[in-house]
């Protein structure tokens, strides 16, 4: 959709993405819960926008707090963030790993419905269970009827099948090179963002390390190694979504905000298998629709955030965006085009593999990164934003190409 009035985003905030890889992570010690993450991310935004008095409503994107944390009814946590949100409109949205994207979409719709400032949050705290049980919970992003036949590590299994189909249709060696380069870029970018889960990663050559790690179906999945996968993360992100009036209310210049140029949310039937495992059909549809509605070509993007829950999903997203032909996304990545100094820097703060993937928070984290990049406030991970390519894009995916949010932004 093209907004019928101006919608902006401003004041993004990320907690750290906590999990294996972070020095402060110790699986044997107690860790902060959902309250901590919601508070930190929520208050982090409120501080930048003059406090809760300026906020009309709030929305929390979350996937599975009901199972990871035994907690439902998440809107009730908005007033906990700041009592100024008490008795105001609040809701929560769920679309698996696309929940954060739904939080943004809902926030945008709130503004179009007449609100001036919406607090959009996304949060997940997943280290409460071991990975083997977390896999059960995350499998809820697929169709439950398929769980029995699925892999112990259900989603890695799904995307391993996609990688396997890609290997068979194109070329395993080229694909593995592209996937390993994807991991390499993710780590290099994450090292520049102190909140990233892989910020402390000191692997001398991530590309070589990933290439050397052959997938082993006996202990994990057939076609992906551990480095091809995003990790288990605890984290939250938040951003304020505002009307033009809203920006005035919080005293922020348009140029310090990003404007939503177009926003598309589309879903694919969860009960149906993908038509072609080597294509992300719903992402292709949503991303191209968003670009079309924005009236731009993909090459006018300065940078993009794509949903690389697995390296193969990154490669397929590059193809879905039309940056490379089917079967050539791996080469496009291998040749360095998506690196931070490449023609199309993607996932500049590390993406899901590098920054982390607190599932319900990821969509909002993507928006925060794009806001930072386009307003040139990304600090150490700032990439060049060419004057003739002022656009940015986020693509957030729930499940196996099921619940998709695609948003095009430009500096306000």
């Amino acid at each position: 959709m093209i907004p019928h009035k101006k919608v902006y985003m401003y004041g993004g905030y990320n907690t750290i993405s906590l999990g294996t890889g972070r020095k402060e992570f110790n699986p044997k010690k107690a860790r902060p819960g959902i309250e901590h993450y919601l508070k930190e991310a929520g208050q982090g935004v409120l501080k930048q926008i003059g406090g809760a008095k300026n906020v009309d409503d709030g929305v929390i994107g979350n996937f599975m707090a009901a199972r990871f944390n035994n907690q439902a009814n998440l809107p009730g946590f908005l007033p906990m963030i700041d009592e100024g949100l008490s008795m105001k409109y609040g809701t929560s949205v769920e679309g698996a790993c696309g929940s954060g994207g739904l939080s943004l979409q809902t926030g945008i719709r709130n503004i179009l419905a007449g609100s001036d400032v919406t607090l959009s949050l996304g949060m997940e705290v997943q280290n409460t269970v071991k990975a083997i049980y977390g896999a059960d919970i995350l499998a809820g992003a697929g169709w439950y009827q398929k769980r029995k036949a699925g892999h112990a590590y259900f989603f890695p299994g799904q995307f391993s099948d996609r990688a396997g189909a890609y290997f068979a249709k194109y070329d395993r060696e080229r694909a593995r090179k592209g996937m390993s380069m994807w991991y390499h870029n993710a780590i290099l970018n994450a090292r520049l963002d102190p909140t990233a889960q892989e910020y402390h990663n000191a692997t001398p050559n991530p590309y070589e390390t990933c290439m050397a790690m052959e997938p082993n179906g006996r202990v994990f999945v057939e076609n992906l190694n551990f480095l091809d996968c995003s990790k288990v993360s605890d984290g939250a992100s938040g951003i304020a979504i505002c009307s033009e009036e809203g920006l005035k209310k919080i005293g922020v210049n348009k140029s310090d905000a990003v404007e939503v140029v177009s926003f598309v949310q589309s879903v694919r039937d969860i009960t149906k298998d993908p038509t072609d495992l080597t294509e992300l059909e719903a992402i292709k549809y949503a991303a191209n629709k968003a670009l079309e509605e924005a009236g731009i070509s993909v090459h006018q993007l300065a940078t993009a955030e794509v949903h690389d829950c697995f390296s193969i999903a990154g490669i397929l997203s590059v193809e879905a965006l039309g940056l490379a032909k089917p079967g050539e996304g791996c080469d496009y990545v291998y040749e360095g085009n998506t690196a931070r100094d490449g023609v199309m820097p993607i996932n500049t703060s590390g993406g899901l593999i590098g920054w982390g993937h607190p599932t319900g928070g990821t969509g909002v984290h993507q928006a925060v990164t794009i806001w930072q990049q386009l307003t040139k406030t990304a600090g150490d991970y700032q990439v060049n934003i060419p004057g003739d390519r002022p656009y940015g894009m986020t693509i957030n995916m729930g499940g196996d190409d099921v619940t998709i949010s695609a948003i095009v932004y430009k500096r306000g």
Partner: protein
Amino acid sequence: MKYEERLQNVTVLGAAGKMGSGILLLTAVEMADLSLQTENKDKTFVLNAVDVSDEALHGLMGYLRVQVRKVAEKKTVALRAMYADRADLIENYHIIDEYIFDVMNIVRPVNSMEVAYNSNIIFEAIKEDPALKVKIFKQINENSKVEPWFFTNTSSIPITELDEKADLNGNVVGFHFYNPPAVQRLVELIRAKNTKDEVNDFALAYAKKLRKIIVPSNDIAGFIGNGHFMRDALHGMLEAEKMVDDFGGYVNSVYAINKVTQDFLVRPMGIFQLIDYVGVEVCSYIMSVMNPNLDNEDLHSTLLDIMIEQGITGGQYSSGAQKDGFLKYEKGRPVAIWDINSKKYVDIAGFSADVDTKLGALPASMKPWKAVNFSKKKDVSLEAIFTEMNGMDTKAAQIAKVYNKRSNEIGHLLVDSGVAANDADVNTVMLTGFFHAYGPINNYLK
């Protein structure tokens, strides 16, 4: 009788002990895996966990539940295939919980031995007491309704002696796990003079299924593992007693030898800590079992006698925590040393600096055991460390050289006396059973 038939009824004696509980866990998992195979689904598998203490059996079941969960979590990929026909088991946790039940459901904790009369296989992990073992084997063998095979976990008693005294007719084999059995991959397999081929074959098949590394050892008291360790420990104790004056006192000397054997010889723990780990009393007992079988050698330590007389036994609590022995431990780290003269623990901090100075500096290339042993460039590190140490003439370097020479001699003795078939077997036992970074038969120190 086929492999899985023989494993349909098994007894573990001493099941709640440190070794017995590990053997029980491994066997229960193996039996459960067999029971889940399509062709075995109508068969019943029984594993008797026999121990004298009800309290310990109570603890055993708790241990088992925790450990089986760990096992299940590691092999969930395979378990999903094993339970593919169970439509009611959908999520990993359903499957893991069911597997835990299926393993636990095989185990019968019991404090009387009569249940063993129905068992085809008897795993024995009771006290290292030859007379007691013989008595129990005899009782089971005479009352058994089948012809049972005995797998003894003895680490020192000749199997032939057990076979003959208990009239087992060759239905016995030494199957010596290392502590803890669930983790350590080494098993020493010891055939008695008359051990039947089929017993030995079964032992090999079973070890293979458990993914153990088998090293055959000849039936000579102590076998390879204790054959080396007991002599090595005795050497360490004699050295410490000899050097009391050099280091200015008994505790200083014990500290010095323990430090050299750990830090300078790149071992996982010092020799006195290892004696404590195994148990002061246990070491003494093993020596006393081995000694009568040895020619031209007196494997006996008066220092161990004194320690036991003073009530200092080492060993471990049922929680796995280290009991105090030669050394006193806080959070698993040595903090004091037992003084046999004053009969008190003396804090290490009070004298360690002085002894360290006397010992001299570590080689510059030195790395701790953990860093060396798990490195891909282990050989390069060891070469560098020992080459440097060869050129050093500090007190510590001298002790280390003598120590390594003795370890080397013990290794050769084990081969020459026919305990081990070759040098490689001796080294494998020390590398895998004792986690040494290098075998006793080496050319590192001159």
